[in-house]
């Protein structure tokens, strides 16, 4: 079957160049990066080269990059590493569960958490951040781009508020990295999470930017790896791949690939809306990352649409992959004010570096046709009632 993958916000394929960079570190260039000998020195160099490439993508210095196992660990390290019982944390209602659930855990251990709302565009208001400040506020954790809608958040004003109040500021940039340029100094953040597999590197590797001079409590104990911020032998092939993917991302910005991707996304979005009524883009009014569109198709179940499309070869999702099978409609779309049935009727399409114009054509044929069929069977397929009269 011809298969098209438009779920790159869930995960991305490892690019061939990334895989080639990783390959030697599974075999001939093995070594523990902490070892004294030749093997260790070789892998140590590879890890430090990757650290520089990642720091180039984020606009920080190499020593500020901590390699982790992925976005979730990066978020948890920032939150648990900076907050202790009695502290107050500010976050938002549209964060990924890696942040929201970590904050929920904080509440259990005696922290206060303020969850800021978003408006219909999917944006939080920096003034709300200022109003939420308390004497014991320790951390602000607000995402850069939303994973479901792609909406980019106003982080720079938050950075200024945090700096003035001398409060730590972390941002989950997992869905922003490699899609829009990132400059941690401009954002004014103290922590920033990225994930390898969202940027065409491997699953199981990520990084947390930790601003120089900011002490952080490690999650793991057992060694002085990563400047005592993350114990455990480095995932060398993963880290090398992350470095290479960061380098490719930087180059692609220079080529203007992000603009091409936005054009493809817009063609998909407008093409679908032109063929279907009673549908609309969630978060269309805000500035978005170039690869994501989230569309509500009224009167249908998103769950059925995803299955029907998958059976025809198109991979998309109803929202966060981590939430599939969950009964609750997307917390992000609900926070934006969508009705639950509209949120349940929403589908996320997310493009990747390997998405082609013919992939978009395929989706433009299949999606309207499938939505049409589902709508014919809606609102409710009527079973023939055969009751004795």
């Amino acid at each position, binding site marked *: 079957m011809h298969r098209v993958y438009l779920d790159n916000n869930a995960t991305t394929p490892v690019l061939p160049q990334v895989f080639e960079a990783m390959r030697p570190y599974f075999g001939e260039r093995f070594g523990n990066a902490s070892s004294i000998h030749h093997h260790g020195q070789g892998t140590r160099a590879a890890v430090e080269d990757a650290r520089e490439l990642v720091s180039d993508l984020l606009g920080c210095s190499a020593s500020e990059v901590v390699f982790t196992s992925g976005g979730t660990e990066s978020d948890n390290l920032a939150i648990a590493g900076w907050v202790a019982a009695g502290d107050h944390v500010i976050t938002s209602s549209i964060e990924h569960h890696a942040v929201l659930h970590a904050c929920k855990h904080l509440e259990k251990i005696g922290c206060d958490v303020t969850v800021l709302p978003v408006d219909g565009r999917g944006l939080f208001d920096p003034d709300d951040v200022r109003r939420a400040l308390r004497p014991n506020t320790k951390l602000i954790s607000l995402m850069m781009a939303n994973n479901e809608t792609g909406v980019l958040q106003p982080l720079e004003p938050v950075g200024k508020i945090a700096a003035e109040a001398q409060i730590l500021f972390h941002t989950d940039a997992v869905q922003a990295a490699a899609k829009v340029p990132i400059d941690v100094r401009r954002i004014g953040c103290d922590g920033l999470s990225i994930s390898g597999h969202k940027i065409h590197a491997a699953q199981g590797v990520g990084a947390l930017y930790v601003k120089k001079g900011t002490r952080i409590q490690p999650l793991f104990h057992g060694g002085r790896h990563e400047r005592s911020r993350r114990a455990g032998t480095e995932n060398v092939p993963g880290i090398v791949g992350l470095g290479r993917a960061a380098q490719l991302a930087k180059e692609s910005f220079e080529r203007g690939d992000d603009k091409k991707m936005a054009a493809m996304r817009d063609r998909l979005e407008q093409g679908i809306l032109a063929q279907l009524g009673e549908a609309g883009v969630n978060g269309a009014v805000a500035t978005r990352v170039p690869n994501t569109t989230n569309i509500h198709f009224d009167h249908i*179940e998103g*769950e*059925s*649409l995803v*299955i*029907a499309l*998958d*059976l025809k070869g198109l991979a998309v999702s109803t929202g966060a992959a981590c939430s*599939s*099978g*969950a*009964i609750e409609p997307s917390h992000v779309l609900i926070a934006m004010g969508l009705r639950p049935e509209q949120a349940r009727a929403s589908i996320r399409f997310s493009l990747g570096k390997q998405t082609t114009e013919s992939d978009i054509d395929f989706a433009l044929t299949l999606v309207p046709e499938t939505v049409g*069929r*589902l709508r014919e*069977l809606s609102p*409710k*397929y009527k*079973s*023939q*009632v*055969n*009751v*004795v*009269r």
Partner: protein
Amino acid sequence: MSGGVDSSTVAAMLCAEGHNVIGLTMQLWNQRRLAGREGMPEAVHGRCCSLDDVYDARRVAQQIGIPYYVVNHEERFERDVVRPFVEEYLSGRTPIPCSLCNNHLKFDQLLIVAQQIGAERVATGHYARVSYDDVRGRWLLKRPADASKDQTYFLFGLTQEQLSRTLFPLGDMTKPQVRKLAHRHGLAIAEKPDSQEICFVPGGDYKRFIDAYLAEQGGKLPDTSGQLVTTSGEVIGEHTGIHNFTVGQRKGLGIATGSPLYVIQVSGADKQVIVGGDEHLYSCTLRTRRTNLISVDDLHKPARVKVKIRHRHEPAAATIARSGEGEMLVTFDEPQRAITPGQAAVFYDGDVVVGGGWIA
């Protein structure tokens, strides 16, 4: 696909026969939802919709190489099965949630999903047979080859439309044959024990479930306590709540008498539990409500059938006749013991299910 041996074997069979098979599991109830509440176990294992069962179903789908999806219908299940289950008990009736689930979820929502994703039929692991009768021009529901596994009692609510799009591939097989076939297909779940109880009630203790469910809903168990009254109208004691009693019950009456006493009737209106000797349990008639007919489109004159009044009941000879809107009067040849409101009465003509309804 529940993750059990029956539906897993169905999937493997159909796949081997060359059908284009898609595996679906309905997520209907969160088994952890009431876990740890008063009287409820901490964690529930090996129950329908538990993580273990979804895991088993997914592994079977992977093994036989079919696409597999979990569809979530928890909201509908709670509305159409769990709530009515609780309400029926609190009104003094003894419900059968499995029939409600078949009518409102498995052969309604699941058929809709099937249609939406382009599947022609839904196959399940139920023990029953379905076939089209050219003479009558109707789809028939029939008892299966394995009488001990017969599930037609729970399927009496199926409409012609539903039956026309349903496959019961296990209808001609016995359970031991199914297990053997599961082994032959190398399915890891071939020896998984049968599930026996109501899927959302752990340990079969429905009273604790009702308590925990109402507490979770922010309500309390309404006071349904009242008097224990004999068939001759004599008050002989108090009871703790009508939902603790079902017709024919002997244990738990809290009364010591010379001759054994049974629950004869549970009266929701005045919260009375009427008790008496075994002889009072027998009755020749019952009325069904919300009656569904399968083998005929209507009943113009009384018909001779056999009627089953609970899952483990040997169908008894009776005459059925229309007695009102969706209502049927059932008159047995011989008095039947413990006819229980809330249960179903299902009518059989030999192996063919004529129809059935809810006992009023």
